[in-house]
């Protein structure tokens, strides 16, 4: 059943390197091309850790299990190799890089995908960047600002989606992109994501969120509940509705240690 999956996570356990407690305690997750999955779960349950382990964050150490992306062992790959293979993570807390403009950064990132013997066409790049900024209702001057430096919370989130829309990943991990966005911005960002999905129907999305609201705009095929480092329930969009109403109390009782 895993052979059609774009992302296949099996029995994944991971911890912060040098600490002795696993944060992820046996995660199983399969996402097929074109699917959108949502993960919900209380604070500290390991949602971001899962996304970061998939993206290759060096702070985490995998202690058991496997992660395959398009059939390849992801855990053997460097973060940049994972990105080039088609994985993109929109950070919950995007990092500021003073002095490096968004345009320069994205140009370098696209050039890196081409390799040494092919030169990125700067006109094409400029056009793509401008088109994407328009899609996300961003002022063109934004491209010249240093990455996330002094950005508002919402601007940072929008900037993540801008990068995603330029890099066109096969699998997008969106970690609480909706948090911090105002109502209008949420719609714009959701529209951006949906546009990408229309452009590439095979694009898969793993959307981490605390709120049902974004799922009205980016409709998930599967909703998972993560609790204490495990996926404890999976179902359709109705799971999100129920969580909104009930909270996590029942999991707390069922998974008490």
């Amino acid at each position, binding site marked *: 059943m895993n052979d059609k999956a774009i992302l296949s996570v099996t029995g994944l356990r991971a911890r912060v390197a040098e600490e002795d407690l696993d944060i992820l305690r046996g995660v199983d997750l399969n996402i097929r091309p074109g699917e959108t999955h949502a993960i919900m779960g209380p604070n500290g349950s390991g949602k971001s850790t899962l996304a970061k382990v998939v*993206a*290759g*964050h*060096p*702070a985490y150490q995998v202690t058991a299990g496997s992660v395959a992306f398009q059939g390849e062992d992801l855990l053997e790959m*460097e*973060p*940049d190799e*994972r*990105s*080039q293979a088609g994985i*993109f*993570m929109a*950070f919950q807390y*995007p*990092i500021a*890089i*003073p*002095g*490096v403009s968004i345009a*320069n*950064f*994205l140009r*370098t*990132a696209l050039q*890196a*995908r081409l390799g040494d013997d092919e030169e990125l066409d700067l006109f094409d790049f400029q056009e793509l960047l401008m088109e994407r900024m328009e899609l996300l209702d961003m002022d063109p001057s934004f491209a010249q600002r*240093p990455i996330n430096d002094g950005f508002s919370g919402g601007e940072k989130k929008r900037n993540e989606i801008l*990068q995603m829309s330029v*890099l066109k990943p096969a699998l997008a991990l969106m970690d609480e992109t909706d948090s911090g966005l105002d109502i209008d911005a949420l719609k714009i960002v959701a529209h951006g994501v949906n546009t990408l999905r229309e452009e590439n129907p095979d694009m898969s999305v793993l959307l981490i969120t605390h709120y049902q609201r974004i799922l009205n705009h980016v409709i998930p095929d599967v909703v998972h509940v993560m609790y204490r480092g495990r996926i404890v329930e999976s179902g359709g969009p109705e799971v999100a509705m129920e969580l909104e109403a009930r909270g996590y109390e029942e999991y707390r009782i069922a998974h008490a240690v």
Partner: protein
Amino acid sequence: MNRLAAARRRAREAGAEEQGQIEGASPERATKNVARSSESTRVPEPDWLKSRRDAALELYRSMPLPSTRSEEWRYTDLARMLRLDDLVPSAGAQPGPASSNGDGTVPEPLRRAMAQDRDSAGRVIDIDGSAVSVELQDSLAAQGVVLSSLREAVRGGDPLLESLLATMAVPASDGKFAAMNAALWTDGVFLKIPRNVQLERPIRLSRWVSHPGTATFTRILIVAEDHSRVSFVDEILSPDFEAVTLVNTAVELFSHAGAQIQYVSLQRMGKGGFYLANQRTLAKRDSTLDTLNVALGGSVGRVDLNARLLGPGANSDMLGLYFGDHDQHFDFNTSQDHVAPNAHSDLLYKGALDDSARGVFRGVIRVHEGAQRTDAYQTNRNLLLSERAAATSLPNLEIEADDVRCSHGATVGQLDAESLFYLMSRGLDREQAERLVVLGFLGEVLDKLPMGGVVEKVTKAIEVKLGHVR
């Protein structure tokens, strides 16, 4: 005020201690070597210069090599790094294949560096402490701009030399190395911009040192008369040396009322280079005297920069940029002396350090009594790219006026793993990610570099270092 008095007393004591301590170890042989040979190659000089040199030489001999016991040299251990005894003077006329003196050719690396320059109003080429070529646009010469080798200028007898050379700006009494230079300089540049003449393009000095184990002494004297404007780019290159090779540079800059001087130093010596510079800027009323020190090369670089704001409305922007790798050692000792009221100075030094490189910044803003409404800032920021790299930053304020705006700040930061991951998660490899973070960090200074090839040169040199190719 008590604090200041105590600091001064401490400084005096430290000085005294030094005196007593190294007396016996003064580098007699080098002094004799250098002195003998400079006498033999020197063309007849006017009496004022002869006696100035003699006095300087005496001072030089009487002063011990600064030790790490003195506050100003605490982090640069000359006793370990520099053996003056082993140096031979670069007479400026040593014929050899690498020198241009014999056949008039410019060494290839210097030629390449010069080819990157655009837009020059004039250029001096200095090989081994001897100006071998001086060029100035005819139209500027016609307007009275004087660009000449220092030796020529002395011969020409411009009275400015007697009054300004090693007197007010970098006199022999400034210290061991200032005295050494005042006694032993072989050549350099004299540049005078007459009243109201404004140069659109920079004057350049392109320097090269060929011989390992030599000591080269160069002086630069620039006088910008009222409401004139000039930008001067002083670039030095050399091959890699097996032996420590000293370059001692004295830079004396005078901007008169309403004038503007921008002095840029591009230090790109090879391994083994020991670059010492004493720079002093004297800014009169409403003048602007900006400096920029870029240190990329050499094994050791030490710059003493003193900016003196002598007239109301004077302004000095002081920029510094350094990138060290391997075991390079850069030491900047700066001071901003606000003597006049209503003046402004703003210092920003930023450096990235890789491998086991070491950066030292020691800076002081001194607001003298009566220098009210001073605006003075000082910032030093360091980015460490390796566990073994180190930076020391010592900003300081000494304020004797009450109506002032001053601030100072210093930071030493690591290359942050989160930043690298962020960039790599977008597909940049580690090297590209480092390159962006470093260029971004230095960008604040890079963005302020003058046009005409400087930014390109500096960026390229940084990229070469980041790629760890030499």
